[in-house]
């Protein structure tokens, strides 16, 4: 077990170093921080002083090591656009993105699994066909367009739900702001969560369906039928349980994708999260924010991959046997 975790960690480190290197290269070579930070009427002495202060006169690898050192301590530099520390900007917006991503994932799981089970058991009913059509549309519909159409129907025409922002948020402690506890916060969450979760929902549904079809053909299901178990016990007790291992893996792996993909949803709904920050930074060529986001997302992915691998190890006994 310890060896397994160790080898996974060792594989993660080069990935993070490479991403850190890319982020550093962006930071150091794209755009000219010196000319951005200097006042219009600077002297040559001021310029040299700034180059020295920023450490730009140091050799390449010293700069890289320095950059990594600062990043490890949560110092990602100063945003060109907002002139504030990047770490603070991101920390301020992290809760909004995480709440949206978690809600979307829960929604996708809670709706996708029953739909997948249903279409797996009743293959050719009208309702199954309807679900399959919905899922095909869900895959073809660009996320931002789905968001716009939802806004048009539920905000503009029906006037039921807000179309932008998080509603009223409550500050929990110093670092976390939540929209979960107010009515307007929850109402604001509905449309963005559907927009972000629909693709995941169709993915989960298709996966559960395919796995169910596969499992229902196996011998132990036939044996369970021969034993005279009820359909309910067979479908949920025997079949569904065995389909959930790959589903949980996919959901775990997709969570990073949801966090990253939320940038589109956040722009449509003006959701004050990390994704919106990134898009605004790209529009204004704000390199420090972009490189910090890149490193953060890479870290999120590496951590999620690690957790999923460990979950897999815990759930699937065959992996343990093969290791020995």
């Amino acid at each position, binding site marked *: 077990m310890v060896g397994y975790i160790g080898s996974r960690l060792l594989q993660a480190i080069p*990935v993070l170093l*490479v991403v850190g290197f890319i982020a550093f290269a*962006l930071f150091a070579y*794209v*755009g000219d921080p010196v000319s951005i930070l200097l006042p219009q009427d600077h002297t040559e002495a001021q310029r040299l002083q700034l180059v020295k202060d920023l450490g730009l006169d140091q050799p390449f690898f010293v700069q890289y090591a320095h950059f990594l050192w600062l990043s490890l301590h949560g110092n990602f530099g100063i945003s060109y656009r907002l002139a504030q520390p990047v770490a603070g900007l991101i920390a301020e917006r992290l809760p909004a993105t995480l709440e949206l991503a978690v809600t979307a994932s829960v929604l996708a799981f809670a709706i996708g699994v029953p739909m997948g089970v249903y279409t797996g058991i009743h293959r050719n009913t009208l309702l199954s066909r309807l679900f399959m059509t919905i899922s*095909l*549309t869900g*895959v*073809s*519909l*660009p*996320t*931002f*367009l789905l968001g*716009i*159409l939802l*806004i*048009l129907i539920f905000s*503009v025409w029906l006037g039921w739900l807000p*179309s932008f922002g998080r509603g009223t948020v409550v500050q929990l402690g110093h670092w976390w702001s939540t929209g979960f506890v107010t009515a307007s916060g929850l109402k604001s969450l509905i449309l963005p969560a559907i927009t972000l979760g629909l693709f995941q929902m169709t993915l989960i549904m298709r996966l559960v369906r395919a796995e169910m079809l596969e499992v229902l053909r196996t011998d132990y299901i036939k044996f369970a039928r021969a034993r005279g178990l009820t359909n309910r016990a067979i479908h949920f007790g025997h079949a569904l349980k065995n389909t959930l291992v790959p589903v949980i893996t996919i959901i775990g*792996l997709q969570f*990073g*994708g949801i966090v*990253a*993909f939320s*940038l*589109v949803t956040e*722009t449509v709904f003006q959701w004050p999260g990390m994704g919106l920050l*990134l*898009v605004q*930074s*790209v*529009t204004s*060529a704000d*390199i420090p924010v*972009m490189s910090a986001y*890149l490193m953060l*997302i890479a870290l999120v*992915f590496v951590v999620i*991959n690690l957790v999923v691998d460990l979950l897999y190890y815990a759930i699937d006994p065959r992996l343990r046997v093969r290791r020995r």
Partner: protein
Amino acid sequence: MIARVWDSDLFYSFRHAPSAVIAALIALVLAAGALFAPWLAPHNPMDVASLSLLDSFKPPIGMPDADWSNILGTDNQGRDVLSAIMYGMRISLVVGLLSVLFAIVVGVALGLIAGYAGGIADSMLMRVADIQLTFPSILTALLIDGVITAALPHDMRDSLQIYVIIFAIGISLWPNFARTIRGSTLVERNKDYVMAARVIGVPRWRIMLSHVLPNVIGPVLVIGTLGLGLAVIAEATLSFLGVGLPPTQPSLGTLIRFGDDYLFSGQWWVTVFPGLALILLVLAINLLGDWLRDALNPKLR
């Protein structure tokens, strides 16, 4: 020639797949409308002189005050929505096709090298592809786009933007091609004809290009078709986010972004019709891609 095409296996399965026929028809109509937009479109949306603010926000046919010269209505500047869609789809399709072509060239080349050379080149390339595949391609494209744009001088940004977008989307799609090609190359490189070519001293690059490549290129058609759908969506998304094509070259995504501002003042058609055109285009491409995948897969026959 026509008879041969008509009787071929592929065309037989095409004739017997109604969804594929309908999708092909829709794709053909949309592509023709886009390709011949300068001749078919009722107005020229690029011609600023012909625009009149008096014509702004005319509703589409079926609503009061509509007229037949602007079937789908007009936008805030009096631009005909139908014509804007036709010109916009032209740009969307061109960018989509060129991005996929770029992704194919890069992906096939690197896939061949990885599969044929093996060793360090193989593990490095595939490691990069694996890492990239875990990220959503839109994030990759957005970051590449942002970085290159930041590196370009201000006055060149608008004119070079279209190439930046093609490069960014192409790079975000290459692993799909590279992995498939690598897989088939690994199988092919151990076959007798490759051995024979090696024995008689054919140079490596020629073995790769004229012996292995023709035998592994097949699946590229399917991945390419599905990739075109992804590329069109990616371009529309980037343009919607405001980091795609400049407003002087409005694609479908740009049109949707402009129309989005007028959703609350009641002019829904400015954004909904370009949106529907985009959905129709992507759906037709995806249906064709799905059909191709099934038709070319011998296991499913």
